[in-house]
């Protein structure tokens, strides 16, 4: 853990430098434009200063985002709707519920596909097709329909998360559950292990590397789903609502701070899975 501090800081530092440079590059035209209209000419240092402090920049400088994040997290009560933490919490709950549902569904489908030939032959193509449906297009309809049958609140959002997150799990787990060597399966046959036993004692353990890789992707997808799901629920609360609202009012700094918050959330969630993975693999003697 400690060993990764320096590398992470280095990479982050490098990205920050890149970010500042990009901010200058992207925001400079506007600075010149303004100056031209005001009939001034700008020195380079003036340009830099301007590009890093515009109110509605094309790309806000890191410190602007940092300040916004600081103001909307540390300086607001967690229960305030102006607090990013509050919104992150709203998104998090939908993400987690959706992730759990999606992972469950994904594993169930994978098991079905691996064990049932009918499902193997007929379902997989449709699972794939389902993922090509642009969720943003049907999300509102889903919400409308669910609303019509009386389901509202957290669940519709979580359903969209689930919809996005079950797919990586299916793909990974089908592969993982099929990864035991022929000899290992033969052994199970000689013991006349039931399907359930073969699953729990052989297929599932050997699918672990695939499972964790899929879970990481699913978690990220689930967060995206939660955010998408926040739009058609009326963009009421959550990071998605912040992103949208930011873009309606041209508040790039607000967009970026919501983005950063989403990214931090994702990094934490994926990090937790990584941690679980390490613990698990160690317990399984595989690290």
């Amino acid at each position, binding site marked *: 853990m400690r060993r990764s501090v320096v590398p992470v800081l280095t*990479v982050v530092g490098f990205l920050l430098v890149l970010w500042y440079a990009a901010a200058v590059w992207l925001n400079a035209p506007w600075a010149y434009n303004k100056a031209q209209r005001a009939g001034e000419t700008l020195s380079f240092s003036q340009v830099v200063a301007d590009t890093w402090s515009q109110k509605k920049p094309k790309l806000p400088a890191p410190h602007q985002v940092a300040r916004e994040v600081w103001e909307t997290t540390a300086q607001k009560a967690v229960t305030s709707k102006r607090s990013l933490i509050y919104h992150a919490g709203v998104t998090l709950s939908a993400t987690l519920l959706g992730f759990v549902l999606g992972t469950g569904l994904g594993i169930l489908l994978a098991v079905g596909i691996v064990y049932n030939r009918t499902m193997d*032959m007929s379902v997989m193509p449709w699972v794939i097709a389902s993922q090509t449906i642009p969720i943003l297009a049907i999300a509102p309809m889903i919400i409308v329909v669910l609303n019509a049958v009386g389901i509202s609140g957290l669940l519709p959002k979580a359903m969209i998360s689930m919809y996005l997150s079950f797919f990586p799990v299916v793909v990974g787990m089908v592969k993982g559950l099929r990864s035991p060597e022929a000899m290992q399966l033969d052994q199970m046959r000689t013991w006349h292990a039931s399907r359930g036993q073969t699953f729990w004692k052989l297929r599932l353990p050997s699918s672990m590397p695939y499972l964790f890789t899929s879970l990481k992707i699913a978690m990220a997808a689930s967060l995206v789903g939660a955010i998408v799901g926040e739009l058609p629920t009326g963009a009421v609360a959550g990071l998605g609502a912040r992103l949208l609202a930011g873009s309606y009012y041209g508040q790039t700094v607000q967009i970026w701070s919501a983005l950063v918050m989403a990214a931090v959330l994702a990094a934490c969630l994926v990090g937790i899975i990584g941690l679980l993975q390490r613990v698990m693999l160690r317990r399984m003697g595989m690290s």
Partner: protein
Amino acid sequence: MGWIVFALAAWALGWLLNVWLARQPVTWWSSFAAPVIFGLTLLAVWEGVVRGFEINQVLLPAPTAIAARIGSSADLLWADFAQTVLKGALSGYVIGCGAAFLIAVAVDRFPFLQRGLLPVGNFVAALPVIGMAPILVMWFGFDWQSKAAVVVVMVFFPMLVNTVQGLQAADAMQKDLMRTYAAGYWRTLLKLRLPAAMPFIFNGLKIGTTLALIGAIVAEFFGSPIVGMGFRISTSVGQLTLDLVWAEIFVAALAGSAFYGVMALVEQRVTFWHPSQRN
């Protein structure tokens, strides 16, 4: 009532047919027929439910209405397909997967990067399209370039994670063998680590196919020229021409499945040796 009975009957019939098919020896046509039957079953059930419950077409149009629309708007659908899939999704997919692959190799090569870049990579993973799309439209303009950029961001992480995991898949003895040959880094990569990583890499590539499509379509919601599948879907929702919306969705599903199918086929060719492919 009649339509609902029809839906139930269609479901039962389709399922029975597939169960029967699955008992037959596998041939290319039966592995093709099964999903088609499943799909037709779904469509029949859908038709029955829409008609049976008299669902308003602005909520959910019937498959027959969608089919009629596909027939009458073929030119429009093709133009949208070319704009979104051929220009936006494909180019983004190639760039995104390529970049993720290269970075995964770099990450694997330098433990420093592995420890530094991966956590930061997790970061990028969750940059939600909805957040990225407006910004990327702002940076790369309204045309397909910004859609490609969104796709790049979308497919990057799954590919990265899978490739990094895959590059660690070679087992100890296989690596020892390479050591005894004093094979350099590149040769080990080429002859051992990459082949061993292929099952994982293809996972990433397959997940990427559908993400690329979603990404390109959804990005068009945030600004686009007046052509493209995402554009059409969003404006048609606004105009309540839901049959066109579903026609586009149908094209998207078809394109996505074909894209995925092609990758799965390539995968079969490349990783024939993996237990999961050795039936």
